[in-house]
């Protein structure tokens, strides 16, 4: 059976084509202000990689913030259920999932049969999310991956107090003005996010593996910070940013 899973996130839109539970193509694009058009474009790109056509697909499942706007989808599912499905498919055991996306950071616990036991998400503000990191990277005149590279070279990470994105930006600007090294500021930003994630993790089972996914899992500095602060080892599956899209395709 051929299925497409499309995760229309607040920042990025991801698509996977799945043949009998195996991913055969992946595509990604920035959601922007016209997410339905981008979703269409990303789906086309994935289909072309797989040398397939719309008509070859048995099912299209959409997920993510824009799940309801994609009219081509046969089914919709929330990103929470989708990521749980994908992670259980890979891990085949109960675990704690950390998903750092553009607008949300989620912690989800699944049991030994893949059922969600409980989940927690960040409050409505952007602190602790991918968007927050993008904004801070902008202040340091780099991108989100550049920010991660800077953080890995820090010798003395600064302690950042602000939890609000806007105030954190002011704090970062003021640190730059005081000649603080960019590397130490970057590491401080990752520590601030990691500390919020570690607090969320404390609400869940401590004796299960922790799986880190979402766009945030592509940044090694963030993984390091979470591991250090939570004192837990994180596992990152292949293509962590595509797991939600993959899970949605597995669901129906």
């Amino acid at each position, binding site marked *: 059976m051929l299925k497409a899973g499309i995760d229309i996130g607040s920042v990025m839109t991801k698509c996977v084509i799945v043949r009998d539970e195996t991913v055969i193509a992946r595509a990604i694009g920035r959601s922007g202000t016209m997410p339905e058009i981008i979703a269409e474009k990303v789906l086309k790109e994935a289909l072309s990689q797989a040398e397939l056509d719309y008509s070859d697909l048995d099912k299209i499942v959409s997920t993510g913030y824009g799940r309801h706007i994609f009219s081509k989808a046969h089914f919709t599912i*929330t990103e929470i*259920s989708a990521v749980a499905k994908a992670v259980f498919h890979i891990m085949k055991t109960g675990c704690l999932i950390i998903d750092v996306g553009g607008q949300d950071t989620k912690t989800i616990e699944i049991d030994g049969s893949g*059922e969600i036991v409980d989940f927690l998400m960040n409050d409505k503000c952007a602190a602790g999310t991918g968007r927050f990191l993008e904004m801070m990277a902008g202040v340091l005149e780099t991108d989100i991956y550049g920010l991660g590279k800077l953080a890995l070279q820090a010798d003395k990470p600064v302690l950042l107090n602000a939890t609000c994105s806007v105030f954190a930006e002011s704090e970062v600007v003021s640190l730059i003005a005081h000649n603080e090294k960019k590397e130490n500021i970057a590491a401080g930003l990752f520590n601030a996010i990691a500390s919020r994630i570690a607090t969320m993790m404390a*609400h869940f089972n401590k004796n299960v593996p922790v799986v880190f996914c979402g766009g945030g899992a592509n940044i090694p500095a963030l993984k390091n910070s979470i591991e250090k602060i939570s004192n837990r080892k994180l596992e990152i599956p292949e293509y962590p940013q595509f797991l939600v899209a993959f899970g949605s395709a597995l669901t129906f």
Partner: protein
Amino acid sequence: MQKKFLNKYNEIILKNLSSKKPFLNDEFEQALKYRLKSGLSSMDDFYKAIESNFRIEKTQKDRYIGYFCSIVPEELLIACCLKPVRLCCEEYAWTNAGEEILPGDICPVIKSICGKFYNNVYDYLDLVIVPGTCDPKTKLAELLSPVKEIYFLDPGRNSDYLDNVDKWTALYTKFFEFLKQKFQCNAGRKQLLNACKLTNKRTEIFKKIYELRIKSPDVINAFDYYVMIYVSFFMDIEQWNNMAEKVYDEAKEKHSLSKKPKILLAGSPVIFPNFKILDVLQQAELEISSDIQCTSFGRFYNPVVIDEDTESGIIRALTLKNIAGSICPCLLNLEKMVNLIIDTVNQYKLDGVVYYNLRLCQVFETQTTVIRQVLKENKIPFLSVKSDFGKEDIGQLKTRFEAFREIIQSGKE
């Protein structure tokens, strides 16, 4: 000294208030929107009542008394022929107006109340009863005192009946004496009994509606239910009883078609027009079939049980219903609250609990983690959300509610 100080403060505030007033038509539009969703013709009168509430025509003998919280005994006001008006409000427009008087990081209910008072919405009130149930209300009593005559009713923060019954009886008795003197009436045992009869009749009707909604939540939808609750804030009780009885009679003949998961809504109260939570729950295909909230269940579910048919006996009975029976987190201890939630879910075979935290109402939020853990141990699906009157988090709330529905449904399979 305090009065002089507060009057001066009031003068400064009034001088600085902006002249722009909130756009109130929004509320009528909201009422119309929910009226269209109603499947009951008997609900029409409730929706019309919301509109007419903005044009109160006060006769010379009418005495309107504003109050907050379920711990204020309406029965004492009714016995004195006064018209109680519950003022708890969740209006976004008035919250903005309130921010001209109070800082932003204050309970939004308090801000919207302040906004209304300082913009003369409540000129028709003859007295306002403010209870000391939570910290912001305690300060509210002071802040409103230059604008209106305030009676501060402080029950303390412990609802254990045996420890406090004499203290509360004295508190209510003093309040009753104050009312009788201020409004020159001779109310006593007979008037109190009549008032209790009215509120007990309301309890009887409310319980029928509450239990009907547990079995068939869609025959009186959540919007209709919360509109009925909101109208009870200001409508004459006898009139409300008659109208609610008609709604029950019409609804009980209908058949439930809903197959959606049934949830218990607990936590902060939902007050018209702030129906965002109800709207998003409906979009996520979750059916609110029961609630544990102070404005509805907490206020109406228990009757006044009179053991001793004397004036002081009735007043004692009122303290039992209103203070000892309060479900406000400022009064009720956590163990009792958790047990109430678990018992309700088990008794009515509900599918899960949504716990709504109104942002900046810290007492509700403080108990969230304990409730979450205990319900998890009891294998009851639980979701807590935090929100306020703004609309910007609708997408995020929807994701949480839909995921919660998916969890419930996959657990049932």
